[in-house]
């Protein structure tokens, strides 16, 4: 092996050890084309090499699970032969370089994942974290990402119905851009490795856009390394999206699925043709013969490794029996899409790639797709001092409480995100029962009374202080957000956003977070059906906060019984469900008012949390609740104000107990919700709460133009709404 070749594998992001493993697999040294194929397939992004052994500890089975992790997306059975397919992915690295296209192509990629399972995409949610908007570059990233999500999502006819938006210093260099898609299929039409039997001689048909030089090395160069100075030079590795082509691809693909024309379907995303072909062949237990001369190219002179690793968007690979080829060509032709037979499945497991008549690569397909390196990287808790800083819970607070309430209400994490959400089409398809303003978005399953309740949540501020607890809170909050609408949490997908796993401190954050997700998912009986891991989110040795993002799917059997989050009318009794403890560690109050991220995050008792969910679901099913809203960032007072602002009705409440006033208002104790009920339903509420062992306390009533917390806060709701709605535009310099 010459030194020049050694340099090549390193340039491609492979280690010396990985090169040795490739040589052992092949029984010879790889040529440059083969090396490029391994480099993309064995990248962190495609192979999950640092996280795989830990992900295996997550619960993935359950009575509703149809498809678990390892395929393009997970799927659950929601009854009546309906399958819900869902998954979350990250497009953080490209978005940090080119926010509009980075975010746009993230949407395109996740939508194709759903389509490749044979499902029609029905909802998108975009959980996002940026650095503070006070910095100009962060404003550019924020505006660009939002516009990119809208620019793509709005053109493909899939509503964007939610997704939280948060801000933290640690995400300044590396914004977190995740996107979740939910799709619906007839359970019988699901395309999975089990449901479709491809055979030797079946054709590999590439359809959709042509293949160009864009996005080469996207997964290895961009997504699996940290972004350092000069990262703008990576811009050619960012793909360019064409939502119009995607829309055609969706319609043509679903028509092919419905017509039973396919033996398999795979989208082309990270690692392009190499990934799609090797995974399709491996799933079928076969090899493949691939002819690069048959791939329609966007530009002349492309060499084999470019064609094999291009991440040009809006392409799909279908596995088609030769007898069905004409059908496939005719459907694609009707939608104006080109098709090309680029190869076929072959007996044995070898993937043979030809170009200009010569064999340019010959490797075992499964060695690319399934047999990449697996690392058990060292994990060590950090020695940093932040955790041991003074717990804000015990810092006396003697300033004006009304001012503090306004500060928290207008803090970017809490303030209205209308500026962003209005740029998303949330109504197309006509099934959006509740959109981004709701704790969980609710999308009706067309033609039924079923409603899918979906929420995406992260608690990275808690995670910064205690990654295990942060992950537990993230799962709990996502389940609670679903349960306050009356829906039953069913299953999750997750996106694990972390720094460089080669640093033991980051690895510890990752393993602690996975442990937290596992414990919470076991307690809630919400299995993990899949997800994505996004590592190397750090710059200059400074990582993002540990940010596991949970995408929770819940089910309402009758969407007409869904509970809104805002007070719908005056004259309702307001109750706090759950208990408030002295817990200001890692709270919004501590960050926004005291300027610290410190202390111990609130405790979380999983069985109490589960009890709260069960109570909320039972109360909604019995039509007892007029509204229910999660107590999250900013605590009880913010939950009350949000319910008042959303409904346009004030309230008058009194807080009992002996907590200091600011703690009672702002504590972020877990497992709580603010509900309102008609006076006639109060007895039923109290009885149900007792049955479920959930504490409830009557706080007061809705009504009037003011938000009144006896002796502490008294402000007109209109004034609060104005402050809440204008906070983000103000930070963007627009008002």
């Amino acid at each position: 092996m010459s030194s020049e070749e050694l340099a090549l594998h390193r340039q491609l992001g492979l280690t010396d050890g990985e090169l040795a493993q490739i040589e052992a697999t092949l029984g010879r040294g790889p040529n440059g084309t083969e090396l490029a194929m391994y480099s993309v397939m064995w990248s962190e992004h495609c192979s999950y090499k640092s996280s795989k052994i830990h992900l295996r500890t997550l619960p993935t089975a359950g009575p509703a699970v149809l498809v678990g992790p390892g395929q393009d997306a997970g799927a659950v059975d929601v009854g009546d032969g309906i399958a819900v397919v869902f998954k979350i992915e990250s497009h953080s690295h490209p978005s940090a370089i080119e926010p509009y296209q980075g975010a746009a192509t993230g949407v395109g990629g996740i939508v194709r994942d759903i389509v490749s399972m044979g499902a029609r995409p029905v909802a998108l949610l975009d959980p996002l974290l940026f650095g503070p908007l006070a910095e100009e570059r962060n404003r550019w990233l924020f505006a660009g990402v939002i516009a990119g999500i809208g620019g793509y999502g709005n053109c493909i006819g899939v509503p964007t119905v939610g997704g939280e938006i948060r801000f933290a210093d640690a995400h300044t260099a590396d914004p977190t851009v995740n996107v979740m898609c939910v799709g619906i299929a007839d359970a019988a039409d699901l395309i999975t490795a089990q449901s479709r039997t491809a055979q030797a001689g079946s054709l590999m048909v590439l359809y959709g856009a042509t293949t160009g030089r864009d996005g080469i090395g996207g997964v290895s160069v961009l997504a699996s390394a940290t972004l350092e100075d000069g990262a703008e030079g990576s811009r050619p590795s960012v793909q360019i999206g064409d939502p119009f082509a995607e829309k055609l691809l969706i319609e043509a693909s679903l028509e092919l699925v419905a017509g039973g024309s396919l033996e398999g379907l795979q989208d082309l995303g990270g690692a392009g043709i190499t990934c799609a072909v090797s995974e399709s062949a491996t799933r079928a237990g076969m090899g493949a013969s691939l002819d690069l001369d048959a791939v329609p190219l966007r530009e002349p002179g492309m060499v084999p490794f470019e064609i094999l690793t291009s991440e040009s968007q809006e392409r799909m690979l279908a596995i088609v029996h030769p007898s069905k080829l004409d059908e496939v060509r005719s459907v694609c032709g009707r939608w104006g899409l080109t098709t090309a037979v680029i190869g076929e499945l072959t007996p044995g497991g070898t993937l043979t790639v030809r170009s200009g008549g010569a064999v340019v690569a010959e490797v075992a397909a499964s060695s690319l797709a399934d047999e990449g390196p697996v690392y058990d990287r060292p994990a060590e808790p950090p020695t940093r001092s932040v955790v041991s800083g003074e717990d804000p819970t015990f810092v006396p607070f003697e300033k004006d409480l009304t001012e503090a309430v306004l500060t928290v209400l207008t803090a970017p994490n809490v303030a209205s995100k209308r500026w962003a959400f209005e740029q998303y089409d949330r109504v197309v398809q006509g099934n959006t029962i509740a959109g981004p303003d709701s704790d969980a978005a609710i999308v009706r399953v067309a033609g039924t009374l079923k409603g899918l309740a979906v929420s995406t949540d992260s608690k990275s501020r808690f995670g910064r202080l205690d990654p295990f607890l942060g992950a537990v809170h993230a799962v709990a909050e996502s389940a609670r957000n679903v349960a306050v609408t009356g829906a039953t949490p069913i299953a999750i997908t997750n996106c694990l956003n972390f720094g460089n796993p080669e640093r033991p401190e980051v690895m510890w954050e990752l393993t602690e977070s996975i442990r937290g997700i596992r414990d919470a998912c076991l307690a809630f009986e919400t299995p993990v059906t899949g997800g994505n891991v996004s590592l190397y989110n750090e710059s200059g040795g400074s990582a993002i906060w540990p940010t596991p993002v949970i995408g929770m799917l819940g089910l309402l059997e009758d969407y007409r019984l869904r509970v809104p989050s805002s007070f719908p009318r005056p004259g309702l009794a307001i109750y706090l469900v759950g208990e408030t403890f002295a817990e200001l560690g890692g709270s919004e109050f501590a960050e926004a008012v005291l300027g610290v991220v410190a202390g111990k995050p609130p405790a979380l008792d999983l069985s109490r949390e589960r009890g709260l969910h069960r109570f909320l679901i039972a109360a909604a099913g019995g039509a007892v609740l007029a509204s229910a809203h999660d107590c999250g960032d900013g605590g009880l007072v913010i939950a009350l104000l949000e319910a008042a602002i959303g409904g346009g009705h004030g309230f008058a409440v009194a807080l009992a107990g002996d907590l200091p006033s600011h703690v009672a208002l702002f504590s972020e104790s877990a497992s709580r919700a603010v509900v309102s009920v008609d006076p006639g339903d109060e007895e039923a509420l109290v009885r149900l709460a007792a049955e479920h062992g959930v504490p409830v306390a009557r706080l007061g009533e809705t009504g009037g133009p003011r938000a009144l917390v006896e002796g502490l806060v008294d402000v007109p709701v209109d004034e609060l709404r104005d402050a809440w709605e204008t906070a983000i535009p103000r930070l963007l310099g627009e008002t």
Partner: protein
Amino acid sequence: MSGAVPPRVGVVTFPGSLDDRDALRAVEQMGGEAVPLWHADRDLRAVDAVILPGGFSYGDYLRCGAIARFAPVMEPVVAFAERGGPVLGICNGFQILCEAGLLPGAMIRNRSLRFVCRDVWLRVETAQSCLTGDLTPGETIEIPIKHGEGQWIATAEQLGDVEAQGLVVFRYASRTGIVDDVSNPNGATNNVAGIRNPAGNVVGLMPHPEHAVDPDVGPTGGQPLFASLLHVAMAGVTG
């Protein structure tokens, strides 16, 4: 309409149409027979009314609606409109009708330069259109908008004609019918949200009435518009 054969309302699907299924469903919900039409067919399948739905036909990469007007289906659509048949263009469909010369003016990017999706109030300006026959001028209705290029503009001469002939069908307004700048979500000239041709059988509007017929998913301001359209289409059936 009870007992009678429901009117057939065609909805054209162009490549890139997004709200075609929604328009078909709205027609069914309001009691019409929904008939899918395909951009490449020169056949209107004997419909009594035509809807050009919202979306991004052909990707709208040149100019919104600029390519769709040349689609084969547009030839019979234009002929149908010239014979007095009711034709409704929603959002991208409105843009196509302007490009096809069936309605005056054009749409440019929103004043904010951003896409905007929100429920808005419209003041009905005339009952002399296929979409507002059941309504009274001055009434307000709530309907969602969702567009990035919805700012209607016209030359001074066109604008003079439009206003003089009373061709404005809807203006963006407050809930109580006050037409002001605060109520204007995209900067449209004179708050114009929808216009008609002089005969009133061709109407285009930026808001989406097909997303305002089902109370479970939003406001219901689209119901009287579809009811009016079906009445006009019905008259065509029986007359």
